[in-house]
């Protein structure tokens, strides 16, 4: 597909991307943009739905992901598809999540232009808000990206350190950073016909020379991330057995924030919000008598294992569950190894292809015949 570039002025990558988005929004081809923008306090950047190009100050690559953008798209489109085109700027993990939500009938991509942006990783919300170089975490991150140092590494969220794929696929337009000389150019690439016709109207510059390292860098980045994931999974393999598991979830207070933050957990009524677990006093007493004692509130391990069984095949490993945990339980240590293994069993790749059906709604008669016939 078409590969265009935009020029970076005064070393300001974020500003140049902002100019491009302004250009796109003022072209009238899209009615509004959903894009991350700093709050007035500049402490954090949240997605805003913006229709006035003059007020656009996008912080597309601000290294923070406060909530799941995919859930916002679901909120905006599940009752009715958008009547007019909206451009939505998303990171790769959120594009994967939104595709899963479409499969689950929770989002509708009619009239949605997905603008994917290469993700250099994000910091935990609080780290970003209290960052020492207060106003400049983005240039700091980009600098380490260009120089290929790991300086920013220590600030990144675990999910980002071992990201499945930071380069967006399935986007109409891709804003590319990897493999580009960020002092000069940022890549603007059309991923689909919709994206191409939008970009053609903008008449962007074509520069074959500027994109020559792109393909190699993308491959290299993916390989490096994969290697890191494998090491991570091997390392976390130690969390095995009920004793280790209860220890792992020790700090869980049953607030269920992880479920709230998860883009895949869309159920309106979660079993754990129901009155199923409210029981007559004698049942509590009977359990205390049988076991001698038990912790309250109970069922926190059941909650995590149950939720895991419900959503793990669609898990896009964005790590928002971990970020949402008030007691800093490193949920990815458990969720990434489980997700990898489960998804491999069903040869399923969440968020990769809309045509790939969610494993729990399809079956083949001649599969897994060893289960049930021993």
């Amino acid at each position, binding site marked *: 597909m078409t590969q265009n570039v935009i020029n970076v002025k005064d070393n300001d990558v974020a500003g140049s991307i902002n100019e491009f988005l302004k250009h796109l929004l003022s072209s009238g081809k899209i009615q509004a943009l959903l894009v991350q923008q700093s709050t007035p306090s500049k402490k954090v950047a949240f997605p805003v739905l913006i229709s006035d190009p003059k007020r656009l100050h996008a912080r597309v690559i601000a290294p923070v992901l406060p909530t799941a953008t995919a859930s916002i798209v679901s909120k905006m489109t599940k009752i009715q598809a958008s009547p007019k085109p909206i451009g939505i700027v998303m990171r790769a993990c959120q594009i994967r999540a939104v595709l899963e939500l479409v499969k689950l009938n929770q989002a509708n991509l009619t009239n949605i232009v997905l603008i994917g942006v290469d993700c250099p990783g994000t910091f935990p919300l609080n780290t970003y808000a209290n960052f020492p170089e207060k106003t400049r975490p983005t240039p700091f991150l980009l600098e380490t990206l260009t120089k290929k140092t790991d300086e920013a590494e220590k600030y990144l969220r675990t999910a980002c350190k071992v990201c499945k794929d930071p380069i967006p696929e399935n986007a109409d337009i891709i804003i590319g950073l990897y493999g580009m000389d960020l002092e000069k150019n940022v890549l603007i690439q059309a991923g689909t016909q919709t994206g191409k016709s939008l970009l053609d109207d903008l008449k962007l510059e074509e520069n074959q020379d500027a994109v020559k390292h792109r393909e190699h860098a993308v491959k290299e980045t993916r390989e490096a991330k994969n290697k890191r994931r494998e090491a991570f999974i091997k390392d976390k393999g130690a969390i095995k057995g009920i004793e280790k598991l209860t220890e792992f979830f020790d700090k869980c207070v049953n607030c269920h924030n992880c479920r709230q933050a998860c883009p895949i957990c869309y159920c309106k009524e979660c079993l754990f919000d129901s009155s199923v677990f409210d029981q007559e006093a004698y049942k509590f007493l009977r359990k205390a008598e049988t076991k001698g004692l038990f912790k309250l509130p109970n069922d926190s391990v059941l909650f995590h294992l149950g939720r*895991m069984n419900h959503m793990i*095949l669609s898990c896009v490993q964005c790590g928002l569950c971990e970020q949402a945990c008030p007691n800093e339980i490193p949920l990815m240590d458990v969720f990434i190894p489980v997700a990898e293994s489960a998804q491999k*069993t069903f040869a399923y790749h969440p968020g990769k292809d809309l045509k790939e059906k969610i494993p*729990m709604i399809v079956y083949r008669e001649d599969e897994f015949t060893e289960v049930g016939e021993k």
Partner: protein
Amino acid sequence: MSEEQKEKKEAFEPKIVGFLCNWCSYAGADLAGTSRIQYPPNVRIIRVMCSGSVDSMYILRALLEGADGVFVGGCHPGDCHYIDGNYKARRRMVLLENVLETLGLEKERVWLRWISASEGQKFADTMKEMTERIRKLGPNPIAKQWNL
């Protein structure tokens, strides 16, 4: 192994929770009963409309509450009253087993078997087999955990 431990082990009677589908396995268990076929009384049967309706949460809850084994019985593949419920139950079981294995929990405690309404003998045999297998495995270690 001391005498006392040995005795304790011999005295261990596994508690098994069985989810049986209304149309096949439950009728199979019923047939075993009406035909007066003997089988171990270790299984506590819960009738469900379809093996496909057994959510992994049911199985996990039984295990975490300390059941020594969980049995799910469904119609033979192709015979489901609801056309394909048992195929879905099978996929769900594959997922559950995989999750349990990754987390180092004993997937051997969870069984899925196909038992038709005419297979009273097979139901009794399966119950015998499962009870013995779980007896060998010993009590569910989760039962001892109080901080779940």
